[in-house]
């Protein structure tokens, strides 16, 4: 079960390249932007259900 999802930006290119997904068992999973990845698919479903991805922008 997904608790939260945050966009992560590449520190060199500053491009959004990974989701940081936190599960309800507190496990932190870094998820690539690959449609064949099942966690990526789960995040898209989670967004479609009305949940919001945290976006703090790049250059953190």
């Amino acid at each position, binding site marked *: 079960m997904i608790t939260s999802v945050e966009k992560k930006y590449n*520190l060199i290119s500053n491009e959004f390249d990974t989701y940081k997904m936190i599960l309800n068992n507190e496990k932190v999973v870094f998820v690539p932007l690959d449609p064949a*990845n*099942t966690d990526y698919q789960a995040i898209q479903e989670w967004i479609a259900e009305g949940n919001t991805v945290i976006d703090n922008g790049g250059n953190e």
Partner: protein
Amino acid sequence: MTKNRNLADLLNADGQIDNADIAGGVNFKNIIINGDMSIAQRSTSVASITTTGYYTIDRMRFGVNNFGTFTQSQSTDVPTAQGFAKSFKVDCTTADISLGAANYGFFNYNIEGQDLQYLKKGTANAESLTLSFWTKSNKTGTYTFELDDNDNNRSISKTYTVDSANTWEKKTITIEGDTTGTLDNDNNNSLRFYFWLGAGSNYTSGTLQTSWQSTTDANRVSSSNVNLGDSTSNEWYITGVQLEAGTTASDFEFLPVDMNLARCQRYFENFDDRRLIWTGDVTSGEEYFHQTSFNTTKRATPSVTVTFNGGNYFNGGTLTSASTYNNTNVLNASCTANSTNARGYFDYFAEADSEL
């Protein structure tokens, strides 16, 4: 027999040596990876399971939805003298006596479409498939096996019976070829199967679809299927799972452990046995990257879980980012130094998951 006679026995009608006679018959006829349940990178036992996931044995997924609570483990209880050392076991620890309509329990396996093109599904020459496996349970009765074409929303179900309680039994099921619906030639989940351990009326209220049809939920599971979640006395084992083209079940195809592990690592790789480490001079506030290659190229860019283990001048030790940069071969992780010093380091564990 003479040596000349033995050699003649190896030749087929064309005077060639059959693949099945080479290296003990290993020709990757078994579509199932880790069917002998020997590889378990994640864990060997997980308790208190109430949701679907991959818990212990590689590639083997356990599905539960309000079906009670289970412990899932890699067991050493195996059929006698069949060559197996491990089995997949589920043990009900909290019962759910009355199944709700949408509730279920299953053992599931998923297969990439690009590995199945030789089955010629969706053509006039579609191959039949034969499944063989060993199973054991205290719960005798009817169970359902379902093969599901995920690309074309088609499926077929067959039943098998556990005849004797607490006794290993070998079962064989043949599935006719499906001349409708080709499988995608890609790395996604095209064909999957379910061993149903119980299901509510949403899945059992129709007529079991014993020939290939468009999937209708109500027709997927036999109305006579047992409910493995109805008692804490219940347990279910399986091993020696083999799915092969054709209408006969051949002997189980054992693979060397290194080959079996590498095939599993296409879908999941655990770095617990080799700690990953970055070392060098560090400046406070700067972020330092560590990159390592996976042992095996992943099916797709994997999700990565990293756990900080220790370090000098990286106190607090949160790995501030980790990614594969959309690369199926390489893991990247980084950590921010909190002091300026020579010879700093951080080390961490990682898991990479690209399961179907």
